[in-house]
């Protein structure tokens, strides 16, 4: 307990003694976390936007003309049994004509004297099934019904959406990993400078019989504190930016970034981790 208290005290003291080198480490960590933080919010909201677009995706089923209502009822029941389907909307020939008039401003009967528009169903799928494989599978199953004339969906659109969503996801994860690693290396290098300036402490500790863990601990505490302070600065900068600019952003783009306490908690955790790992990496060289 006494040793632990001594090591914690040494860690805080080290931070105080590190002066400019310590401040530099804190700034490096803060800048890295600001980048990571903004990048995370932007990527997260982009993915949410893509998911929203995907939720509006639907399949249209055109029915053969002059189908008996009993058959339609039966088909509706069959659709209800497909577990991937979330919502079914029936569009009768009359509704289709009304929709035509609404969209094109002309009455179909004025043009053709009869209504060629077939009855149809518009279905949307449950979130887990909103992918190309499931959509193709559901469409194939529906096509097998004899009353179905045609099944239509925007295949190319879905393909593009999936491709870009995957791309965005890979880009976000890679950027996150790369930025975190860069932060660790940068933090580690600046912490190395602080440790270098106090290498006499390390050699004296070795002389009096300190174990490597005993020598390492105060520097790890110091690094974690630097990470924590850097993260707090980053959290304040990100928080204030969203606080002051969200209204402008919303009025121009309709987009408003929402940042939760969990995000700030994560940022502080990540900062502390960067400081801890950076100091562990930095001290290793001096203990060899």
């Amino acid at each position, binding site marked *: 307990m*006494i040793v632990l208290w001594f090591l914690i005290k040494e860690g805080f003291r080290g931070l105080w003694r590190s002066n400019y080198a310590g401040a530099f480490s804190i700034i490096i960590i803060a800048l890295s976390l600001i980048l990571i933080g903004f990048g995370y919010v932007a990527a997260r909201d982009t993915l949410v936007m893509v998911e929203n677009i995907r939720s509006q995706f639907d399949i249209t089923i055109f029915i053969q003309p002059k189908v008996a209502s009993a058959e339609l009822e039966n088909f509706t029941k069959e659709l209800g049994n497909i577990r991937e389907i979330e919502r079914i909307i029936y569009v009768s020939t009359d509704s289709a004509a009304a929709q035509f008039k609404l969209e094109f401003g002309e009455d179909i009967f004025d043009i053709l004297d009869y209504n060629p528009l077939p009855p149809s169903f518009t279905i949307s799928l449950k979130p887990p099934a909103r992918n190309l494989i499931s959509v193709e599978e559901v469409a194939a199953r529906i096509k097998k019904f004899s009353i179905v004339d045609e099944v239509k969906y925007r295949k190319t659109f879905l393909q593009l959406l999936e491709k870009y969503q995957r791309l965005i996801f890979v880009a976000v994860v890679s950027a996150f990993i790369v930025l975190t690693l860069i932060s660790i290396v940068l933090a580690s290098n600046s912490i190395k400078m602080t440790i270098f300036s106090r290498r006499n*402490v390390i050699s*004296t500790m*070795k*002389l*009096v*019989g*300190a174990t*490597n863990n005993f020598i390492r601990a105060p520097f790890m505490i110091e690094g974690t504190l630097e990470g924590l302070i850097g993260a707090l600065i980053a959290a304040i900068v990100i928080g204030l930016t969203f606080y002051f600019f969200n209204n402008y952003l919303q009025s121009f783009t309709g987009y408003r970034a929402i940042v939760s306490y969990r995000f700030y908690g994560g940022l502080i955790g990540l900062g502390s981790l960067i400081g801890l790992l950076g100091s562990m990496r930095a001290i290793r060289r001096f203990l060899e």
Partner: protein
Amino acid sequence: MITFFNVSCTFGKEAGVKNINLTINEGEFVFLTGSSGAGKSTLLRLIYMDLFPEKGKVVIRNFDSSKVRSSEIPFLRRKVGMIFQDFRLLEDRNVYENVALSLYVSHYKTREIRQRVYNVLNQVGLGHRVYYNSKELSGGEQQRVAIARALVKEPVVLLADEPTGNLDPRVSSDLMSLLTRINQNGTAVIVATHNYSLIPRVPNARLIQVNEGEIVNPT
């Protein structure tokens, strides 16, 4: 207590030590003498295992250089006190903190640390300088703090590498008297020096002359 078995440890062609066979017993006072670069410091570094032999082995109590693991070296150093020409004190700490560091690393309790530090500082004549910063002390006083730091852990041997190198003759003489008193209390003392005028200060000391990495007068 300390035995060198046919030890060689070189850095290039000239420096280092060659084929050293030597035994130092408990409670002995030993002078290692020789010119600069003769290999005196190398012998001391081999004792506190800052260096390892290329050939042969050094055994200090139950620590054998050929078998010791790096994780065991701190435990050896808790049994071996060291002082240097440049004192190697932590300048941003006071006298108490410098001395107490030796005990914190060995996980002593606060009360015992305080008691031991005050005792040892009184023993080296620095009871009145406990809370002075090490930078505020004279060279002689700084070397006494270094001795206190080495002694506070009650070592079996005290190694001194040119301990008077930065001190004037009067302070050097006082320091040798202190080392003699420490030796009389049962701690073995090994002083590496090229200052031959120190030798008569300790009449019963054993003299080992080192020249070009070899012991000239083996006993």
